[in-house]
C-alpha cells in the first residue's frame, strides 16, 4: 500500500476507533485523536522528504479498481502540485487536533468529525481519480457544517450554519456536474485523471463543450474557495466556527477548489481556460481590493481574519488566471503558505476567545503583556499576512505578481495595492488594537499558553511558515516541473521581446568604480 493511503487512512481509522470508546473517557479520546493526526503528519513529512523533484509521472502511486464498468478506481499518487498540500494538510490537521482543547462538550463526536474531515481532505488531495477526488472532499465537507452548527459560537450561529451549508453544498454539487460532464464529454469512460488528461490531449474537447464545463468547474470550485462575489459565507462561517474547524476548513479544505482547478480544469480545458482567464482575473480584483476594504472595516477579530483569508484567495486565483508557469507555481506556493497562515491565525484567535470570551477589537487591547507567547505569534502571523519577506506568503505572492504582470499588468498593480497597502493597514491596525495599548483591567487574569503541548501547534505552524519562507526551494523545486506540465498547453499570451540579461551587480559596481 502506498504511504498516501496511510496518511489519509490513519485519521479515518482513529475516527473509527473513537466510535468504540465511551464518551466519558476524555483523555483516551484526545490521545487517540492526536495520535491519529500525528502519525499522518509524520508520514507526510517522510513522504515529502522522499519525494524526488522532477521525476517523471506520479510517485507513491497505488491503484485499486473499484467500479469497473464506470472506470472508477482508487488511485492515489503525488506530483509537485499536491505533495506540499498534503504535507500542509497533515500538519494543520495535527495542529487542529492539538488546539481542540477548547471544546468542552461532546468531545467524542467532535473528534470523530475532526478526524473524518482530516482524513477525507488528505485523501482528496492524494486522489488521482475524479470520483474519489470529489467523494473524499464531500466526506470532509459535511462534518464542517455539523461542527459549526453544534459547537459554533455567538448569536449568528444558526444563520451562519445555514448559509455555509447552502453555499458549499451548492458549490460542491455544481462542481460535481462539471466533473460528470467532463467524464461524459471526454468519452474516455474513465475517471482516472492521468488517463483523462492523456485522452483529452489526444482528442481535445470541442470549444462549446469546454465552455460549458469550465464555468461549471470555475464557479463550483469558486464557491468552495469564496471567489468574489460568492464569498459571503466565509467570514461569517469562520467567525462562528469553533477554531479547530476554522483552521482545517480555511487552511486545508478551501484549497480543494483551487487544487481542482489546477489539477483538472487547466490541463483538460485549455481553450476555455484562456477564454475565461480575463474574467477570472477581474473577479480576483473583487477578492483582493473589495474584500480587503471590507476587512479594514471589521470590528471583530475573527471576521477580520476571515475576510483577510478571502482576500488572500484572490492572489491564488490571479496566479491561476495568469496561466503561465510562474503564476501557477506561485498559486500553489500561496495555497500552502496560506494553509499554515490561516490555521495559525484562527488557532490564535481561538485561544484569545477562549481566554476573554470576546473577539470585539474595541474590548481587547494590550494583550501582549499578559499573553507574550500568543501575542508574539499573532504579531508574526499578522506580518506574514501582509506579506513580510521571510514568511512563506511573501514568496508565493511575489511569484504570483511576477507571473501575472506579463498578462494582466493593470490588475497586478491593483492587487499589489491590495496586498501591500490594504493588507498592511488592517493587519497592523489589528495588531495595535489587540496587542498594544493599555490593558483593560478585566483582562488581568488572562494566562498565556503554558506547557509545551499548548504551545506546540502555534510553534509548529509558525516554524513551517518560516522554513518555507527562508527556503522556498524546498517547494519550488518540486512544484515547477509539475506546473510546467499543467501550463504546457498554453501559448505564452504576451510574447514580448526577452529582456537583455543584466550583468551581475558586483561586476557593474566594479566597472563603475574602475571608470571613476
Amino acid at each position, binding site marked *: 500500500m502506498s504511504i498516501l493511503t496511510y496518511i489519509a487512512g490513519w485519521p479515518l481509522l482513529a475516527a473509527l476507533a473513537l466510535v468504540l470508546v465511551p464518551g466519558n473517557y476524555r483523555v483516551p479520546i484526545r490521545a487517540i485523536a492526536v495520535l491519529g493526526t500525528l502519525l499522518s503528519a509524520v508520514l507526510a513529512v517522510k513522504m515529502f522528504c522522499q519525494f524526488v523533484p522532477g521525476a517523471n509521472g506520479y510517485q507513491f502511486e497505488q491503484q485499486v479498481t*473499484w*467500479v*469497473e*464498468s*464506470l472506470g472508477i478506481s482508487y488511485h492515489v499518487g503525488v506530483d509537485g502540485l499536491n505533495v506540499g498540500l498534503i504535507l500542509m494538510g497533515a500538519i494543520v490537521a495535527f495542529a487542529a487536533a492539538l488546539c481542540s482543547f477548547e471544546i468542552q462538550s461532546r468531545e467524542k*463526536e467532535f473528534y470523530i468529525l475532526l478526524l473524518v474531515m482530516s482524513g477525507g481532505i488528505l485523501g482528496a488531495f492524494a486522489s488521482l481519480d475524479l*470520483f474519489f477526488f470529489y*467523494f*473524499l472532499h*464531500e*466526506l470532509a465537507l*459535511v462534518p464542517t*457544517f*455539523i461542527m459549526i*452548527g*453544534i459547537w459554533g459560537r455567538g448569536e449568528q450561529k444558526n444563520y451562519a450554519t*445555514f448559509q455555509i*451549508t*447552502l453555499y458549499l*453544498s*451548492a458549490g460542491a*454539487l*455544481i462542481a*460535481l*456536474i462539471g466533473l*460528470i*460532464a467532463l*467524464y*461524459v*464529454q471526454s468519452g474516455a469512460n474513465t475517471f482516472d485523471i492521468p488517463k483523462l488528461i492523456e485522452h483529452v490531449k489526444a482528442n481535445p474537447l470541442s470549444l462549446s463543450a469546454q465552455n460549458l464545463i469550465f464555468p461549471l468547474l470555475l464557479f463550483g470550485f469558486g464557491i468552495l474557495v469564496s471567489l468574489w462575489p460568492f464569498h459571503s459565507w466565509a467570514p461569517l462561517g469562520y467567525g462562528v466556527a469553533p477554531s479547530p474547524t476554522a483552521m482545517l476548513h480555511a487552511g486545508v479544505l478551501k484549497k480543494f477548489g483551487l487544487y481542482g482547478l489546477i489539477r483538472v480544469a487547466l490541463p483538460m480545458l485549455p481553450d476555455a481556460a484562456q477564454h475565461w482567464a480575463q474574467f477570472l482575473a477581474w473577479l480576483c480584483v473583487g477578492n483582493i481590493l473589495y474584500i480587503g476594504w471590507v476587512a479594514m472595516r471589521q470590528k471583530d477579530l475573527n471576521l477580520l481574519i476571515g475576510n483577510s483569508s478571502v482576500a488572500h484567495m484572490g492572489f491564488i486565483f490571479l496566479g491561476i488566471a495568469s496561466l503561465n508557469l510562474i503564476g501557477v507555481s506561485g498559486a500553489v506556493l500561496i495555497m500552502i503558505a496560506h494553509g499554515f497562515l490561516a490555521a495559525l491565525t484562527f488557532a490564535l484567535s481561538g485561544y484569545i476567545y477562549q481566554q476573554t470570551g470576546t473577539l470585539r477589537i474595541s474590548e481587547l487591547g494590550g494583550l501582549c503583556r499578559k499573553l507574550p507567547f500568543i501575542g508574539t505569534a499573532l504579531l508574526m502571523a499578522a506580518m506574514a499576512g501582509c506579506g513580510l519577506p521571510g514568511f512563506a506568503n511573501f514568496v508565493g505572492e511575489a511569484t504570483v505578481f511576477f507571473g501575472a504582470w506579463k498578462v494582466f499588468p493593470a490588475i497586478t498593480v491593483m492587487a499589489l495595492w491590495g496586498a501591500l497597502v490594504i493588507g498592511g493597514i488592517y493587519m497592523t491596525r489589528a495588531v495595535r488594537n489587540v496587542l498594544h495599548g493599555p490593558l483593560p483591567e478585566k483582562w488581568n487574569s488572562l494566562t498565556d499558553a503554558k506547557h509545551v503541548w499548548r504551545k506546540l501547534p502555534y510553534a509548529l505552524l509558525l516554524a513551517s511558515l518560516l522554513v518555507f519562507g527562508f527556503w522556498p526551494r524546498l517547494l519550488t523545486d518540486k512544484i515547477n516541473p509539475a506546473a510546467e506540465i499543467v501550463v504546457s498547453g498554453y501559448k505564452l499570451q504576451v510574447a514580448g521581446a526577452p529582456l537583455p540579461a543584466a550583468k551581475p551587480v558586483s561586476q557593474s559596481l566594479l566597472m563603475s568604480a574602475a571608470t571613476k
Partner: protein
Amino acid sequence: MNASLISLEMSVVGLGLVLMLADLFVPTERRRFIGYAAIAALSFLLFASLSGNGSCSLAGTAFNGEFINDGLSLFFKRFFLVAAILVLFIAAEFADRIVAAAEYYSLILFALAGMLFAASSNDFAMLFVSIELITITFYVLVSFQRSKLASLEAGVKYLILGALSSAFMIFGIALIWGTSGELNFNKLAAVLAKTPELETSKIFLLGVLLVLVGLGFKIAAFPFQIWAPDVYQGAPTPTTAFLAVGSKAAGFALLLRVLFTAVPGVTAHWGNLLIVISGITILYGNLCALPQHNLKRLLGYSSISHAGYLLLGVAALNASGQSAILYYLAGYLFTVLAAFLVIALVLRHLDTEEISGLAGLNQRSPLLAATMTISMVSLAGIPPLAGFFGKFLLLKSAVEAAQTTGNHGYYCLVFTALAGVVISLYYYFGVIKVMYWSREAKDLSAIELSAPAMVTAWICIAGIFWIGLFPNTLLTLANAAAGALKL
C-alpha cells in the same frame, strides 16, 4: 407454457394462506412467531431465487407471453423479497398494537405477490391485475388500525384516489387496445414498428398517457402525489414502509416496462414531458417537506422527491438511466426501511409522531440513533452512503442524455435536482439535530430492543454502507437487468 416459472408467486400466495390458517391454531401470546415463520419462509425463497438454479430464477415467458421472467423481473423480485422480509420484521415489532396480526402478515404477503406479478408483467391485462392486487391489499393495510381515526381517514383517501387512478388506467388500456388491437407489450411494440402512424394517433397517445397517470399515482409523481403525505402519515408504520418501498418500486418496474418495451417509439418523443414532471416532483417534494413536524409526513414528502429523482433516470431515456434507477431503488430500500424501523420502535409508545418525539434518542438507544442518522444522511445523498452513489449515477445518466440528444432541458433538470438536494439537507439534518442535540427531551429511559429488531437495524446499516462503498456487484446486476429493456 412452463408453469414452474410462477413457482415463486405461488409459494408466496400459499404462504399467505397458511399464515391465515395458522392464526387459528397459534395462541395469542405467540402471534409474533407467525411473523418470524413468514420471515424464515421468505428468506428461503430469496435464497432460492439468488442461488440462480432453482425454478424461481428460470428465464422465459408463460401464459401466452403475459408473464415474463427476465433479468429485470428477477432483479425486482429479489428486491421485493428483501423489502417484504424487512417490512415483516418491522411489522413483528408493531404487531402488539394491532388486533389480528396474522391477517396483517398475510396481507403483506398478498401485496408482495402482487408486486412479484408486477415485476413479471408483460401485458396490459397482467399489469392491471397486479396493480389492483397491490392497491386493494393496501386499502386494507392502510386502514388496519380500525380504532385510529387517522388510519381510517388515510384508508378512505387512498381508496378514493386509488380507485380514480385505476379508472384512468383501465380507460387508457381500453384506448390502447381499441386502436392497436394488442395488449401484449412485445406484440404492441411490433405493431407500432409496422404502423408508425399509430404513434401519432391522438387516441392511442391519450391511452398511453392515461396508463402513465395510473402509474404516476403509484409512484406518487407530480401531479398525482396529493395522497402520499396523508396516507403515509395515517397508515400503520409497517404499511407506510411497504408503501414507500414496495409499491413505489412496483410502479417503477411497470413504468420501465411500458415506456421502454411496449411503446419505445412514443417514449422517445416524451423526453421533455418526463423532464418537466421529474423536475416539478423533485421541487414539490423537497419544498413541501421543509415545514413538516410529523416525521411520517416528512418522509411522505421526501418519498415524493425521491420519485422525482428516480424519474430523472426515466427521463434520460438511456440504458445508464435505467440501471441507475435500479441501483437507486436498491439503496432507497435499505435507507427508507431503516428510517421506518426506527419510527416503529421509538414512536410506538408515544401518541404523536412528531419529530420532537425522537429527542434524546442518542441517549435512549445509540444504535437506533445511529441507524436513523445513517438513513437520513443517505437520503440526503452524502458520501459514502448508498444515496450518494445512486444520485451520482442518476445525474450522470442525465448529463449523458444531454450530450447525446443536445437537449438543454436535461441541464435544467440536473440543476433542479441539485437545488432539491441542497433544500433537502435542511430537513434531513433537522431530524439528526433533534436526536443528538435537542434539549427538549423529557423521557430519557433506555429503549429495549428485541434481538430481531437489532438484526434488522444492522442489516439496513450494512446494506446502506455496502451499496455506497462497494457498488461493483450491484451495478453489474443493475446493468444486466436494464439490458432486458428495449430502448
